[in-house]
């Protein structure tokens, strides 16, 4: 082969790299939409809980030779019910209760997986994904997930934005907060289920939160925030895969690492810019709450 282009060739000459790129970009788009509302509403922790809570379901599915997605759907439903019951009924702070719940689910996942003869292989696949083994049918399911997420966002955009300011505001604007809160949990669950195969349950939170959080720092409008999240996620997918190919490192890890790095750089730059701005406008933050 002639000296090719190291930025393009990995994808043109390997089908598994093309699949991986398409899959991770689809995941990035799903995460950009869901992540925007999760970041605005401050649901990162619940997203984390859901991501780890699906592990036992996937593990059980793999143990019986069923698709991991089926197991993820079932355990996500259990987790969501658990989380919303806890948020409503718990006398402990809901952080504590949800944290214990998801760690319990994770432990159950490890127990189930330990019954499998290929324990290490299975748990690695669940936690870190298997991006380089994505098939065409996986891509189809990702596309379905993207469509569902887009539909939910179109329906619920207004109540979601109201709830990001205050639940009471959504309520007094005539929207049912319990319904739309549950719908947001469904949105997160779909994202987690769609993403676990590519980046794994341990890292999906990075794709969900990092690009959207970077968008929140820069954007002045929710739509812009979502667009920036999509661009960051796509860039992280491409750069991460490229690094994974050339340096022979884990694909999911590389992508999420790039995403978090991009967030870090954006946070530093925006802090510097805001600091300068503060100097120009001395009374900007007179009313901290």
């Amino acid at each position, binding site marked *: 082969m002639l000296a090719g282009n190291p930025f393009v060739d990995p994808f043109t000459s390997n089908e598994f790299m093309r699949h991986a790129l398409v899959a991770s970009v689809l995941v990035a788009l799903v995460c950009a939409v869901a992540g925007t509302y999760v970041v605005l509403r401050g649901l990162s922790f619940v997203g984390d809980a859901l991501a780890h809570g699906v592990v036992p379901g996937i593990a059980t599915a793999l143990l019986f030779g069923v698709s991991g997605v089926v197991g993820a759907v079932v355990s996500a439903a259990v987790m969501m019910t658990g989380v919303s019951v806890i948020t409503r009924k718990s006398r402990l702070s809901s952080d504590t209760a949800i944290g214990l719940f998801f760690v319990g689910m994770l432990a159950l996942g490890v127990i189930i997986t330990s019954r499998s003869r290929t324990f290490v292989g299975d748990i690695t696949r669940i936690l870190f994904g298997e991006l380089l083994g994505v098939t065409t049918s996986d891509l189809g399911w990702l596309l379905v997930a993207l469509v569902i997420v887009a539909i939910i966002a179109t*329906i619920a955009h207004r*109540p979601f934005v109201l709830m990001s300011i205050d639940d*009471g505001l959504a309520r*007094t604007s*005539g929207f049912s907060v319990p319904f739309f809160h549950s719908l947001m949990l469904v949105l997160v669950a779909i994202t987690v289920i769609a993403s676990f195969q590519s980046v794994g349950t341990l890292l999906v939170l990075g794709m969900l939160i990092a690009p959207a959080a970077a968008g929140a720092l820069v954007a002045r*409008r*929710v739509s812009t925030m979502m667009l920036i999240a999509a661009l960051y996620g796509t860039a992280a997918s491409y750069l991460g895969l490229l690094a994974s190919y050339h340096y022979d490192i884990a694909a999911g890890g590389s992508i999420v690492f790039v995403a978090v790095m991009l967030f870090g750089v954006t946070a530093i730059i925006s802090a510097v810019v805001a600091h300068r701005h503060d100097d120009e406008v001395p009374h900007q933050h007179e*009313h901290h709450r």
Partner: protein
Amino acid sequence: MTTKFPISTNTIAKTMHTASCTIKSESLAVGHGHHTIIDDLHLQLMSGDLLTLIGTNGSGKSTLLKTLAGLLPALAGSVSVLGSAPGSLPKRVAYLPQHPVSSHTLPLRARDVVAMGRYAHLGLFRRETATDRAAVGDAITRTGTSNFADRPLRELSGGQQQRTHLAQVLSRQAEVLLLDEPTAGLDLSGKYAIAEIIAAERARGVTVVLATHDLQDAESATAVMLLAQRVVAFGPPSVALSDDNVRACFGFTQPH
């Protein structure tokens, strides 16, 4: 306005307006969970009325407003707003909470926050019309929000954010306004501006319930309710704001 206190403001309301009853409560108890803060409230407000709630923090002002907004259930008795259960007519009732902003990272311009006041009319899908845009523009002008309408909320001072949220409430063009300390964090000109806005809303028949620390906000009211986890006094300002009542409400006499 009440059957509980000797001073009835019904006559005042009737001579000022020939309008209909907008907020009515009988033996209403408000509070959180099982903890009753104010008991046995009898209210009857007409369109154009201003009821000012005065008291210290924790006196029950916000609890009463939240109950009228439908965010807290009535613990006893009955209450209706525009003839319906509180919270059931979002297009016709607007509520300004005490601390509207919970996050400083929201990527929303002041203009977008004001426009959110129209969501009650727009529902999930309806597109903004010229009427909606006019209501938003009008609210922005009246609250003096124009200068920073295109800046993100997080870059605004506390007073500017307060004006933005008031503009959001006004943009709904509701018939009942429930305002929890709208003048908090505002300078004197801001306070005057809000007093003018309230007067203008009342002139077009809007019923206003206003919670405040500031006795001056009470002087133009139809009725004043002094609260200290109970009703200390309730009646027209000239009667309710007696030195004895104010002392009982605040623990000292405020100059007014």
